């Protein structure tokens, strides 16, 4: 009797285990299929996103003839690495070293792409505008978050209101404000550059003139970043400010020692986004700085590869685009955590 009992319980146990295994195996199958579905979707999306980059790279390695084929090839028939050397090595230098026809192409002489100048201009504008912009953003966000002054809320609402106006609308008025011949920008900044005339009649401070000023100054203030950082500052508890007061700090020291360290992730996001914005800007630089000395990289890429008859040398242009993308690519690889944070907080920008 007792034995039978034991048998029946063990049989029950076996059945139970089988049921459990059944459930878990069917769950496993569902999970695997789910995973396959998810990864397939992600893979397809990644292909869609990556295809333009792939096309840029293969195009940059084709000859112009191959590029112009009615049915584009997905892998170059002949790899033309000279597209890169043509734009990296100045023609005179190649000629002096006897590299023409080997390291660089015969027609590289037609190149008017000056990578170094474009790069230097863009870096200068990007770094200067980012530094000033971050300083302005931090100080104004602090004022709106922490200080008490008359009309604070009205002023902040007015600033937010400006976000409703699309940038294209005030491009022309901005241009009229800063770049007319007798406007204060040309007068003031060219004068500033000539201030040290004592060093010689032609002495001009490097990188100080109205074109650079026009590239940098109109976009120093970003209401959106001020708003973003203000919200971040507001989350810092009031008691920390009071404690710091009791501990003997001034407002500015509190900002520097407590608020900035606490809001550092947001500030880094802002810095990166601003830098990327400066690197990618196109329309405004084309309006205010469309000459050899001041041209930025985006405009340089657009202009440099068209000959007089209007034909564009796309493979070399693509090679240049690929080179120019590298810094942004590196920034994205190494700082993507902060970029994602900035993007997900803003919800729209990127």
């Amino acid at each position, binding site marked *: 009797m007792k034995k039978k009992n034991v048998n029946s319980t063990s049989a029950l146990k076996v059945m139970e285990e089988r049921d459990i295994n059944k459930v878990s195996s069917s769950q496993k199958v569902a999970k695997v299929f789910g995973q396959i579905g998810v990864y397939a979707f992600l893979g397809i999306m990644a292909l869609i996103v990556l295809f333009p980059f792939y096309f840029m790279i293969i195009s940059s390695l084709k000859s112009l003839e191959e590029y112009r084929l009615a049915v584009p090839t997905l892998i170059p028939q002949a790899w033309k690495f000279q597209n890169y050397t043509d734009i990296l090595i100045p023609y005179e230098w190649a000629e002096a070293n006897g590299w023409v026809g080997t390291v660089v192409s015969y027609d590289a002489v037609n190149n008017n792409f000056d990578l170094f100048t474009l790069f230097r201009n863009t870096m200068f504008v990007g770094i200067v505008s980012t530094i000033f912009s971050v300083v302005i953003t931090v100080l104004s966000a602090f004022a709106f978050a922490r200080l008490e002054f008359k009309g604070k809320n009205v002023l902040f609402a007015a600033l937010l209101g400006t976000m409703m106006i699309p940038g294209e609308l005030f491009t022309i008025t901005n241009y009229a404000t800063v770049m007319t011949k007798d406007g204060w920008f040309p007068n003031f900044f060219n004068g500033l550059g000539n201030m040290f005339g004592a060093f010689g009649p032609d002495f001009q401070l490097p990188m100080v003139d109205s074109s650079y000023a026009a590239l940098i100054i109109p976009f120093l203030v970003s209401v959106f970043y001020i708003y973003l950082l203000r919200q971040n500052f507001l989350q810092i508890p009031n008691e920390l400010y*009071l*404690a710091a*007061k*009791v*501990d*003997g700090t001034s407002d500015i020291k509190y900002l520097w020692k*407590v608020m900035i360290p606490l809001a550092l992730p947001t500030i880094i996001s802002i810095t990166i986004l601003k830098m990327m914005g400066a690197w990618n800007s196109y329309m405004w630089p084309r309006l205010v700085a469309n000459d050899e000395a001041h041209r930025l990289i985006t405009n340089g890429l657009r202009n440099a590869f068209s000959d007089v008859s209007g034909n564009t040398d796309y493979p070399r242009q693509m090679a240049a685009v690929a080179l120019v993308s590298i810094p942004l690519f590196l920034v994205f690889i190494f700082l993507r955590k902060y970029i994602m944070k900035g993007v997900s907080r803003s919800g729209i920008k990127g």
Partner: protein
Amino acid sequence: MKVVLQNLTKIFPSRSKKAGEEVIAVNDFTLEIPDGKLIGLLGPSGCGKSTTLYMISGLQKPSGGKIFFGDDDVTDLSAENRGIGLVFQNYALYPHMTVKQNIMFPLQNLKGADKLTKEEMIDRAYYAAKLVQIDNLMERKPSELSGGQQQRVAIARALVKMPKVLLLDEPLSNLDARLRLQTREEIRRIQKETGITTIFVTHDQEEAMSISDMIVVMKLGVVQQTGKPQEIYDNPTNLFVAKFLGTPPINVFNGKVENGTLYIGNDAVLNVGDVADQDVWVGVRPEGFTPDENGGLVCNLNNIEVMGRDVSVVSTHEASVNPIVRSIINTDNKIDGSSETIKYTLKPHKVFIFNKETEERIYFEVK
């Protein structure tokens, strides 16, 4: 350093333009705090005790009155120049700094002749940390500490610049019961060791009575009574103070005085001498009851809670303002738990009578 508050007043203006909506948070507060004492500011929430503390610290400007540290008028001095230490209810530690950096922070802001070298700062920080026994946690971040440890860091940060006055805003309210008991003794010890005049704010009367040299009871911005904890307990000036101090709370009855005799309901309980005939509030401390077969006060007995040394007798009386009458009785008195009623005589010095309208104390002589 002694601290003197002279007619201190704080009025918060009304939010809307309508007149008369302003809030008087602190009204005409005058107090002299002797050097090296521990003072408890006690009152229910919203009574202006924290506002008073913030005015002493300089974080809020008084609307009227003056504050003196010693003989110096500091009323118009801003918080950063006042040289006080303040511990906040939520500690307000800088989350991105280590314990050591937190404690050193006030020292880094010293200017002029007070400026310290890095070594001196570290020495001072370790001295303060040892005082509150956290010198083994110096490299941790606040998020890696328990509530009690964070609290000690906050105290160390307040003490490190050797303030003239130490202010504590509800320092124990975020701690659990056991830690609270331990920390309040700790605060007492540190205060005695350093001899810094300390003012602390609490709504917990037990906390205030247990460690203060002197307590100040406040209600709606007005000081009700100032004195040593035992004096206030034994001699409350009005019904509010009597009700606020003591656990279990005082028993309050509707009563009247007729021909020199005090009545609770219809029970004649005490001879109060030459007090004029009137309706009164009668307050009786739980320890003021003595069971007595011939006692005047007759209560309906509910139950008896045994606590070992004493018993707590729960009864009801139709004149009682509280739903129950609770008395604490020494176990030497045998009480018949099966009886329907219990009779008490009252100890005269544990009985307070208060004016029915003003709730002010009416003093009487026991004959």
